[in-house]
């Protein structure tokens, strides 16, 4: 106990007993103990001067933190759509059989803990699982058997990974099963650029000129919302405060998205350099990469890259000889919560709190991290900056469409020949897209993930991927004709139900009522009124929710109905007497009673024999 107390105290001291570093403190404790024991909270209570109830607020919010003893090996199997399309069920069963325990629990001897998790950013190599946050990809039941047997036999986890990853095996430093699967590069990320070129160019101009250049480029946020990057920067630059922050949002959690993963493994220098450029532009000295826990395996690799950049003076004091411009970057890990991709929730999380979106205004550009003006940009946005600053804003504006200039990285998964990452120019048609990825038999495409639009592939061939038509945030999941589309839409609704932070009523309660109505429809028990209700209720949830999650959670149903109305209409119940509710089944609802009699009652058993 004394030993534990000392351990916990020294962990807290490592972070200066700063409660805003609670996420790091929890990670360190969990790395040490496998979970975060109650006793540790009692120590932290005094070290950080907050109550245990307050500590549990943060702890219980994130699904990668454990409050009770977990397994020696914690297996997180991706349950998302991309995994379901590639045989998730068999893998799920294989893990349960081999580990001899059910998902959501730890096996008897404590060796394995089985858990499910939404998209882990490996949609192009599913089914995949994280074992102690190390990715295992392209799983088959046989592979599962071998992995579990090897671990049970005492083999080191790291020793199970033999192939070299990143750069599709070209990077001989890193052993990992994760392949980059870059299928096509375009004019931006395809260009060879030497590290520091873009930053050096920026430092020759004033910060205002840098912002102008980015405005000229017409660069818009690549996370999905598409807010003008230069505009955001100018707000932040103008905001009062001597301390400002640049935050890179690397919490890509939208199901089907994995393009940021490739940027971080293939273009880390450009990303960090982009952060330095942003820092110079807004007047910040500190950058933070908020990295989702699902990408914790990149930690050493990225820390190494940061070290290299410091050695090259791309980070550090007087960056590239620019006197007075100091800039450095640290990595902050999340712990599993999709909603943290919302920028104010991300800030809350960085401050060691629940990932709950803040009440706005004020916006982060004025009051952000630790109350200071903060710019939050997507990984892809930041990584494009060195290219833009080196070649000029008008060069970048020359690509794409009038209103959506530039290029976009797409994460392609599902039913196609060539899943992976593609850099395209905005304005590409759906027809060109499908041909590019080898989707010969596409029925539907989920564009920009569940919060985007489920399009009817054949009816949308001439639609263009750009903000003025079909907004492409990165995720593209393709479904064939033989897929039960509504099953996946139902999964997406469940995703929103489970990832709602729960702070506001409409998102917490409303997503569930929508999903329940979808269930009623799929069960063939719904009438036209039930169908109409979904849309009316979805509108209320969208209008009254606190953040973008609730504002878009109805999209899977709304867009699939708009583009595939017959899928819904054919399921409507027209046989049942309209005076009855078709979902009530008298026979089914007395089954429990019959069973209770059989199991508990001698007489019952005789009567029903």
């Amino acid at each position: 106990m004394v030993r534990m107390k000392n351990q916990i105290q020294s962990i807290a001291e490592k972070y200066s007993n700063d409660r805003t570093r609670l996420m790091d403190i929890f990670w360190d404790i969990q790395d040490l103990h496998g979970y975060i024991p109650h006793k540790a909270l009692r120590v932290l209570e005094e070290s950080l001067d907050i109550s245990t109830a307050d500590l549990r607020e943060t702890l219980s919010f994130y699904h990668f933190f454990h409050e009770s003893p977990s397994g020696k090996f914690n297996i997180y199997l991706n349950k998302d759509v991309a995994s379901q399309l590639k045989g998730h069920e068999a893998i799920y069963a294989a893990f349960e059989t081999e580990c001899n325990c059910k998902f959501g629990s730890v096996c008897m001897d404590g060796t394995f803990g089985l858990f499910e998790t939404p998209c882990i950013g490996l949609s192009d190599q599913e089914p995949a699982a994280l074992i102690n946050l190390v990715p295992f990809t392209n799983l088959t039941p046989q592979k599962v058997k071998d992995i579990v047997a090897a671990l049970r036999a005492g083999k080191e986890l790291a020793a199970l990974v033999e192939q070299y990853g990143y750069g599709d095996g070209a990077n001989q430093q890193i052993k990992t099963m994760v392949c980059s699967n870059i299928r096509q590069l375009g004019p931006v990320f395809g260009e060879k650029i030497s590290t520091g070129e873009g930053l050096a160019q920026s430092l020759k101009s004033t910060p205002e000129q840098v912002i102008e250049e980015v405005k000229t480029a017409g660069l818009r946020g690549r996370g999905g919302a598409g807010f003008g990057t230069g505009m955001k920067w100018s707000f932040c630059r103008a905001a009062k405060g001597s301390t400002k922050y640049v935050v890179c949002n690397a919490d890509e959690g939208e199901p089907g998205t994995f393009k940021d993963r490739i940027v971080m493994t293939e273009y880390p220098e450009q990303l960090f350099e982009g952060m330095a450029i942003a820092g110079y532009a807004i007047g910040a000295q500190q950058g933070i990469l908020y990295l989702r826990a699902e990408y914790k395996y990149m930690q050493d690799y990225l820390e190494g890259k940061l070290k290299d950049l410091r050695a090259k003076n791309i980070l550090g004091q007087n960056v590239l000889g620019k006197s007075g411009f100091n800039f450095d970057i640290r990595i902050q890990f999340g712990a599993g919560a999709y909603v943290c991709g919302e920028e104010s929730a991300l800030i809350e999380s960085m401050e060691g709190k629940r990932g709950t979106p803040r009440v706005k205004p004020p916006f982060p550009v004025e009051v952000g991290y630790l109350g200071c003006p903060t710019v939050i940009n997507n990984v892809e946005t930041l990584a494009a900056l060195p290219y833009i600053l080196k070649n000029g804003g008008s060069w970048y504006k020359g690509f794409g469409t009038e209103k959506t200039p530039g290029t976009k990285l797409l994460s392609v998964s599902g039913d196609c020949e060539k899943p992976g990452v593609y850099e395209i120019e905005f304005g590409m048609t759906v027809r060109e897209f499908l041909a590019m990825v080898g989707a010969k038999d596409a029925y539907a495409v989920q564009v920009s993930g569940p919060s985007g639009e489920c399009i009817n592939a054949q009816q949308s061939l001439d639609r263009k991927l750009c903000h003025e038509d079909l907004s492409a945030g990165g995720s593209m999941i393709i479904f064939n004709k033989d897929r039960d589309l509504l099953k996946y839409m139902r999964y997406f609704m469940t995703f929103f139900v489970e990832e709602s932070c729960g702070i506001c009523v409409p998102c917490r309660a409303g997503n569930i009522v929508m999903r329940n109505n979808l269930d009623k429809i799929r069960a063939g028990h719904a009438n036209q009124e039930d169908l109409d209700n979904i849309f009316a209720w979805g509108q209320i949830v969208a209008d009254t929710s606190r953040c973008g999650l609730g504002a878009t959670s109805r999209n899977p149903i709304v867009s699939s109905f708009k583009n595939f109305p017959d899928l819904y209409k054919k399921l409507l119940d027209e046989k049942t007497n309209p005076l009855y509710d078709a979902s009530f089944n008298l026979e089914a609802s007395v089954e429990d009673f019959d069973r209770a009699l059989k199991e508990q009652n001698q007489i019952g058993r005789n009567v029903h024999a």
Partner: protein
Amino acid sequence: MPKITFKIDGKQCTAEDGQNLVEAAADNHVYIPTLCHMKGEKCLGTCRVCMVKVNGKDMAGCTLSVSEGMEVTFDTPELNDKRKALIEMLFVERNHFCPSCEKSGRCDLQALAYRFKMHIPRFRYRYPFFEVYSKVDKLMLEHNRCILCQRCVEFIRDPDTNRKIFSMRNRTNKSMIQVDYRLANKMSEEQIDKAVAICPVGAIIKKGQGFDEAYGQRKYDQHPIGYEVDGGTNSK
């Protein structure tokens, strides 16, 4: 403080510049219903019942500050239906059995449902299971009735350390309030009374004190909610 003028549904109102909309409206005898906002306290923005329209956009009224010339749309069939729907979501989300609740007759959720003439929620009841937490000496947490407004979380603190006594656990619909056992046992009578009083529903109950006001004499038996603000003029 400089005064500004703004409009709610065309009605000319005056307020201090930057005043919270819900409070400014109240000063002008317009009751904007809310289940989380408390006068003079920081905005929580959790219940969303105070939805209004400003410049055609739906906004939670408690998150807005009034400014000169601002035009607020508040009392429309569409907005009232949204408010009602939010209240109905709360009714089906947990187990609100008014006949057996200590807070009945003085419950803000119930009173607002009256105000919006809810006969029955449009959504299906979910009947989830929540155990009552009764380990603390003097109070109980009746999770079945909690609407997760976070008033207790934000506005009740340990007086010695300023640490949170109530907090939120889990996320999504599994969210629950919880207490810090030791700090909760240290709470004074007055502080417990305050916690019970600010709870808009019957989720925080003082032990040994249940149905202490007679039917017909409870707060909302006398007047509908918002009466002190609008004198009953725009309760329909």
